């Protein structure tokens, strides 16, 4: 039982655990104290001098981020003196800010813009020309740095020190010539660079991947779970549903991933974009393969299934689908039809035990544990050895393959699929448009991506739920199905 303290915030009694700062208590109470340098996931620096609050009985205003709440303290954030302090602090931050919002990717989600509107002093007193600094510097594989926009809050420097422990960034020079930068001839090289874009309250760091692609006010975000590894970070996927186009992924604060996510995960929206995606089903039951409607392809598959004997059928399942999809698939093929041959689709080069100490794990599948549990539930053994050779040799006449959603996490994907060329009929359920290039694949069904379906993964830290699917947008998304939906349609045809 931890000790609590009670203090007055804007005339209201607030009880928080001892040791909490006024900033943290205010955030919990829903009282917004303007701040730049304070970040919940980092240490306290107190450099921006923006989060001023009035404490009764103390001669000067104090910074809320470094002010511990004590018993009986009376704090105000609404007095004129405090408002005046916020106004002037912001005026100082804007002295050398270039105001290139029109070309800045942060515009629309920028703290400077937001605070200018809420607490700003609209007319600047500054008459001297602004200090010019280097712009558009290439400081890392993922990052572009604009030192003019920087307000020197030092969040990025602390991130480098505390989270990745790479110490790649520092503040150089003094006074109005102070700039953020890397050490000479050094670049940021770790796997967590894009977090700097997220924590930067202004547009000093921008992401090379997202740079100039879209203005943020056109984007909608939906909650999802990163499918890139078994950690299962909680993320927000940003896209334009009307175009069925996705633009970026950002981490959402949770117990699993804290405030961060890795750079690899940031790219796992691209396979859901119309270019390069399988948007129509392929059917080649009789004669040559051609693109058809999904319903037609499913009817073809159902006919094929009803004409085949159970012993000739095999399933090939990759661990990147949801528990619900596995349950439906195994229920239908194993329990109802009696298929015995279930193979797992694993990457032979993977090292599942790897862990980088922050978030990224070597098992690049979101649901390895979920697949194992689903197999166990229908009484099959969970064998994660590479099984493509076994499958190719088994002589199965009808293979239904649930291909991995993220082809990029399977470096030997092509090689593996080519092994299936000997088999007479392979129906690949996939999202990857390259499937047409493999001559061994006679049939394909276009699947929905992780941001477009509901379901759950069993990640490293328990069950993670996908709850907010993007709606099917335009004609590109009309034919997409998820496994459960496809199976229901197959059953209707039998």
């Amino acid at each position, binding site marked *: 039982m931890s000790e609590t303290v009670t203090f007055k915030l804007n005339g209201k009694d607030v009880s928080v655990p001892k040791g909490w700062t006024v900033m943290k208590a205010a955030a919990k109470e829903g009282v917004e104290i303007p701040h730049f340098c304070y970040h919940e996931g980092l240490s306290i620096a107190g450099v921006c001098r923006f989060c001023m609050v009035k404490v009764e009985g103390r001669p000067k205003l104090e910074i809320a981020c470094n002010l511990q709440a004590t018993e009986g303290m009376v704090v105000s954030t609404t007095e004129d003196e405090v408002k005046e302090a916020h106004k002037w602090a912001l005026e100082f931050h804007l002295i050398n800010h270039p105001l290139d919002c029109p070309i800045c990717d942060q515009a629309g989600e920028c703290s400077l813009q937001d605070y200018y509107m809420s607490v700003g002093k609209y007319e600047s007193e500054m008459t001297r020309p602004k200090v010019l600094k280097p712009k558009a510097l290439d400081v890392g594989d993922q990052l572009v740095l604009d030192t003019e926009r920087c307000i020197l809050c030092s969040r990025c420097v602390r991130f480098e020190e505390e989270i990745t422990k790479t110490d790649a960034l520092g503040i150089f020079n003094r006074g109005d010539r102070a700039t953020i930068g890397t050490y000479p001839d050094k670049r940021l090289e770790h796997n967590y660079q894009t977090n700097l874009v997220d924590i930067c309250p202004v547009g000093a760091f921008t992401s090379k991947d997202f740079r100039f692609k879209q*203005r943020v006010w056109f984007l909608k975000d939906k909650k999802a779970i990163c499918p890139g590894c078994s950690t299962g970070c909680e993320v927000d996927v940003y896209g334009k549903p009307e175009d069925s186009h996705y633009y970026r992924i950002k981490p959402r604060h949770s117990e699993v991933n804290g405030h961060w996510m890795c750079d690899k995960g940031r790219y796992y929206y691209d396979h859901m974009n119309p270019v390069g995606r399988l948007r129509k089903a392929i059917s080649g039951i009789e004669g040559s393969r051609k693109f058809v409607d999904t319903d037609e392809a499913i009817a073809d598959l159902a006919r094929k299934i009803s004409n085949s004997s159970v012993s000739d059928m095999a399933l090939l399942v990759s661990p990147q689908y949801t528990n619900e999809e596995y349950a439906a698939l195994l229920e239908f093929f194993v329990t109802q039809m009696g298929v015995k041959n279930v193979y797992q689709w694993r990457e032979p080069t993977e090292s599942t035990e790897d862990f980088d100490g922050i978030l990224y794990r070597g098992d690049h599948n979101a649901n390895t544990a979920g697949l194992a549990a689903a197999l166990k539930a229908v009484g099959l053994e969970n064998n994660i050895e590479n099984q493509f050779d076994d499958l190719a040799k088994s002589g199965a006449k009808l293979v239904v393959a649930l291909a991995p959603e993220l082809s990029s996490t399977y470096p030997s994907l092509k090689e593996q699929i080519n092994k299936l060329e000997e088999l007479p009929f392979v129906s690949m359920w996939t999202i990857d448009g390259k499937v047409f290039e493999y001559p061994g694949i006679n049939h394909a069904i276009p699947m929905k991506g992780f941001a477009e379906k509901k379901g759950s993964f069993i990640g490293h830290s328990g069950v993670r739920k996908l709850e907010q699917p993007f709606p099917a947008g335009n004609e590109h998304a009309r034919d997409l199905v998820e496994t459960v939906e496809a199976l229901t349609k197959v059953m209707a045809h039998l």
Partner: protein
Amino acid sequence: MAGVIKVASPPEDNNLFQKGYGYISTISQGMWKTWSIFWEQITGKEKTNTLEWPEAPANYSDRFKGKHFLTRRPDGQVRCTACFLCATHCPADCIHIEAGQHPTNEIEKYPVRFEIDILRCVFCGFCEEACPVDAIRLGPEYAMTGNYGEKWVYTKDYLADRTQLQGGITSVKDEQEKHPTTDHHPNGEEKIKALARHMQH
């Protein structure tokens, strides 16, 4: 009294003109006016207000908001920074921009594609108002013709560089510190006047 409406009684039909022949005099008065103006016009006594456009020129104000154009920087590059503010404010959703990284670091962001679907455009001028750098303006050209679909999507090259613009019009907004120039661009004003005159011939 509420609810009571007094209806006037019909005019008494005791007059010859009101018995059904009154229209003759009214119609002959009207036809007299029509034919007399027609006579004056064909004999050239009175000027007609109808123009034989396009053979005869139509004089619109120089400030008429017609066909869009994109302005340029003093060095000839397109002034637009691809901030998307015009596309955001466009009520007709007719502006399509694709932004990209310019090869020179001084410009950074520029429009790789800038297209206006002129059939959707309602000529409200919001794009002009939203633009922070005077990159897009509605010019005085009011006549727009075309006979197939592509003609109606104005590309970046057409908007910034069509022959009527005579080498392009310079924006009045400039990054003062980076490219010091005068605020006043006489060549811009002259060219716009020329554009208006061009429409008249």
